[in-house]
C-alpha cells in the first residue's frame, strides 16, 4: 500500500490549502494519494487540520487552494450529495425522528431505489452490523455502541466506494471501542471500501489502519504504515505523539554511515541512528522507546555506549513492569519490561547500566 503511485490514486489531495479567516492557514500544502481499498487514518491533535481535510473531501468545506480528486476527477465543485461518499459522524447523527430502518432507507429513497430492493438492502446492512432485530427502534432507544453500528450501516447501505469516519468511536467506552475497531476494519476490508478515518487516538490509528497520516500544524508530518510510524518516526513530533518515548537533548559529534555519536547536554556519550541530522555540531533530540532500553549487558553489542541509571520507581502493571529511572539528569526516563518468569524486578535506589541497539535510538530534529 505504501508504494502507491499517483496513477492508481483513488483519492488525491494536490497542493490543498485551507483558510477560514484569510489570515491563517488551517491546512498548509497538503499532498496525499490513496489507492482503492486502503484504510487510511488521519491522526493528530485537535486543531491540526485533520477534520478540515475530511470535511473538504466530504464537500462541507471548500478548499481555498488546490485540487481534490476522486477517482481521477476533480470534485471541488461537486456538491456533497453528488459525491457518493458515505460518512460516519462523531455524534452518529442518526435522524432522531426516524426509526433505524427509516434511517437506513433514507439514502436509498433519495436515490429513488424501489421499495423491495430498499428493504432488502436495509436488511442486509443491518445484518452486516448484527443489528437485524433493531429495525423498528428509534435512535434514542439504542445504546451508544448500537447507535454507532447503525450509523456505520447507514453509511454503507448505499454501497459507496469511499467512506469517511470522523472520530466515530470517540464517545464510547474502552471495551466497546476495541470491539468496534475490529468490526470496522473487518467490514472495510471485506467490502473492499476505501476508508478515511479521523481520530486523535493513536492506538486506534495503529491497530486499524493500512497507513497513518500524522497531522500537526496543518501538515502531514509522516505518512506511513503503523509499524514504520512507530519504529521509525521521521521527526520528534511523530516520535512524541505516537506511543511512549524517552527523549534526551544533545549535540551530534560524529556521523558514520547509519550510526552517529551524540554527546548529551549532561556530558554522556551515546550511539544513535541519524534520521534528520546531517552534520556534526548540529543539535538533536534522541528518542528511544521504553521497551527497547536494555539493562542486561550480555544483550548489548560489544563496545556500545552505556549510561548510568538509578532506579526511582518500580510499577507493577500486570503484563508489564514499568520502571522509572534517572538517566543523565532526567528522572522521567521510562523502561518497560515484559512480565516473564526470568524477568528482573528492579528496586528503587538500585544503580544499573543501560544501553540499546543503535538503530533503536533515533537522532531527530531538536
Amino acid at each position: 500500500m505504501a508504494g502507491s503511485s499517483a496513477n492508481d490514486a483513488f483519492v488525491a489531495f494536490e497542493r490543498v490549502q485551507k483558510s477560514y479567516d484569510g489570515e491563517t492557514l488551517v491546512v498548509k500544502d497538503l499532498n496525499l494519494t490513496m489507492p482503492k481499498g486502503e484504510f487510511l487514518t488521519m491522526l493528530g491533535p485537535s486543531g491540526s487540520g485533520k477534520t478540515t481535510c475530511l470535511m473538504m473531501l466530504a464537500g462541507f468545506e471548500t478548499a481555498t487552494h488546490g485540487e481534490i480528486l476522486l477517482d481521477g476527477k476533480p470534485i471541488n465543485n461537486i456538491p456533497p450529495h453528488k459525491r457518493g461518499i458515505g460518512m460516519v459522524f462523531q455524534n452518529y447523527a442518526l435522524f432522531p425522528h426516524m426509526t433505524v430502518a427509516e434511517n437506513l432507507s433514507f439514502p436509498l429513497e433519495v436515490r429513488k431505489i424501489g421499495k423491495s430492493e430498499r428493504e432488502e438492502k436495509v436488511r442486509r446492512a443491518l445484518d452486516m452490523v448484527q443489528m437485524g432485530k433493531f429495525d423498528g427502534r428509534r435512535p434514542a432507544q439504542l445504546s451508544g455502541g448500537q447507535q454507532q453500528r447503525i450509523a456505520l450501516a447507514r453509511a454503507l447501505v448505499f454501497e459507496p466506494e469511499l467512506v469517511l469516519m470522523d472520530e466515530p468511536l470517540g464517545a464510547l467506552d474502552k471495551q466497546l471501542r476495541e470491539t468496534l475497531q475490529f468490526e470496522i476494519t473487518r467490514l472495510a476490508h471485506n467490502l473492499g471500501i476505501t476508508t478515511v478515518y479521523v481520530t486523535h487516538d493513536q492506538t486506534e490509528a495503529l491497530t486499524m489502519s493500512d497507513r497513518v497520516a500524522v497531522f500537526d500544524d496543518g501538515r502531514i508530518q509522516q505518512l506511513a504504515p503503523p509499524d514504520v510510524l512507530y519504529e521509525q518516526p521521521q521527526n520528534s513530533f511523530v516520535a512524541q505523539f505516537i506511543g511512549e518515548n524517552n527523549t534526551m537533548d544533545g549535540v551530534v559529534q560524529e556521523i558514520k554511515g547509519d550510526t552517529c555519536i551524540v554527546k548529551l547536554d549532561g556530558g554522556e556519550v551515546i550511539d544513535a541512528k541519524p534520521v534528520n541530522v546531517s552534520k556534526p555540531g548540529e543539535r538533536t533530540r534522541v528518542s528511544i522507546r521504553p521497551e527497547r532500553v536494555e539493562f542486561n549487558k550480555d544483550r548489548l553489542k560489544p563496545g556500545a555506549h552505556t549510561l548510568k541509571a538509578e532506579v526511582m520507581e518500580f510499577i507493577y502493571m500486570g503484563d508489564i513492569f514499568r520502571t522509572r529511572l534517572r538517566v543523565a539528569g532526567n528522572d522521567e526516563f521510562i523502561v518497560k519490561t515484559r512480565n516473564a518468569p526470568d524477568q528482573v524486578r528492579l528496586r528503587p535506589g538500585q544503580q544499573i547500566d543501560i544501553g540499546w541497539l543503535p538503530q533503536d535510538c533515533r537522532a531527530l530534529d531538536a
Partner: protein
Amino acid sequence: MTDGLANQGTGNASNELLLTTVDGKPLKEALIHAEARAKRRAFFLVLPLLLFILITFVAPIGQMLHRSVHNDGFIVTEDFGTGVRTPIMVNLTEWFNENPPGSEIDESAYAALAADMVVLKKERAAGQAGTRINYEISGSRSLFTKTARNADKLAPPYKEAIIAIDPDWENPELWTVMRSASSAYTATFYLAAIDMTRNANGDIEMVNENRQVYVKLFQRTLILSLVITFLTFVLAYPVAHLLATLPLRYSNLLMILVLLPFWTSLLVRTTSWMILLQSQGVLNDAMVGLGILDDENRIQMMYNQAGTVIAMTHILLPFMILPLYSVMRPINPSYVRAARSLGATSWTAFRRIYFPQTVPGIGAGALLVFILAVGYYITPALVGGADGQLISNLIAFHMQKSLNWSLAAALAALLLGGILILYWLYDRLIGIDNLKLG
C-alpha cells in the same frame, strides 16, 4: 425513621408478602410517614401561589361560567344598602309554571303581571327586571318602567288595561322571553351568543339575518387568527433559523432586537402602527412622495382587517420566534450534513430532516400565537375599525357598554371552549408532550 432499610419481614414471619421495615412496620406506611414532613413543607411553599390562583383565576372563571347560564335579574331584586334579596315577578313565574309554552296568554296571565307590577313599583325594581328582558327585546326596559309607574291604576280586566298602557305587551315574543327569564338558569345567553333565539312556541331558531353578528364575528376571529398565525410562522421561521445558526455573539444581539418589542408597552407599539399605517401616515406619505401612489388613491391600511392583521402579526411575532429558536438551537448541524452526505439535496435535507425536528416548536409557537390572537383586544380595538373587530371587542362591549354580563360570559365561555377543543385536537394530532416552549 431512623432506619430506612426494608427487608422481607424477618421479624414477621406470619406475613411474608407484605414488605416491612426491619422493626416490622409495613413499608408503605413507613414511606408515607418518612416523607410526610417533606411533603407538608412543599405544600406550604406552594400554598400562597395556590391561593392566589384560586382567588384571582379559578374563582372568577367559575363565576363567569356560572353567570353565562344564570341570571336572576327578572326574579330577584337586591337592596344594595341592606343586602336583602326580595323575589319579584312571583305571580307571573307561577303562571308560567302552570301553563306550558305555547299556551294562550289569557286574562290570568295579565292578572299575574299586574300583581307583579305593583310589587315592582314598590320595590323600585321595574328597571332591573326590564333590563333583563331588554337584553333580548330592545325597548322592554321602558315598557316595564312605564307599566310599573301606572301599576296602581290597573283594574280588571287586566288584559285590556295593560295593553292600553302599551300595545307592545301583546307581542308573543315578549312572553317567550319573560318565560325563559322567569327561571334563573337559562341557555338563552348561549343561544344569543350563536345568533339563536326561541320563537313564540319555544322552538330554537336563528335570529333575523340583520341581527346575526356573533357567528360571523367568531368566524372572522378564527380566520384572522389563523391568518396571523400563518404569517408569524412564515416570518419567524427564517429569523429563528438565523438566530439558531449564527455564532452566539451575533445571535444575542439579534435576539435583543426580537425581544425589544416585549419591553415596549403594547399601547405604544399599536399606536406606532397607527402612525405608520394611517392614510396620512408614514407609509402612504412615502409612497405618494416617491410617486408610487397618487395623493387621491392613498391605500386604506388601517381601520380595517388589514390593520388588525399587520399590527397583530408584528406584536405576536416574538411568541413564534422564541419557541422555534429554542427548538432549532440544539439541532446539531451534523444531521443536515449527514443527510447531504447520504445523497439528499439541500431541499430534501431540509424537508425530511431539519423541518420534522422543528415541528414541536412550530406547534408550540402556533398554539401560543393562535390562542393569544383569538383573545386579542387592544390592537383590534385601536386599529381594527368596524370590520377589523374581533370577538373579544364584543365581549368588552357587553361588559362595559351594554352591561349584559351574562351574554359577555357566554361569549367568553364559547371562546374558552373552542380553545380547549383546539388544545385537545393538538394533543391528539401532535401530542402535548411534543410542545416545546423554551
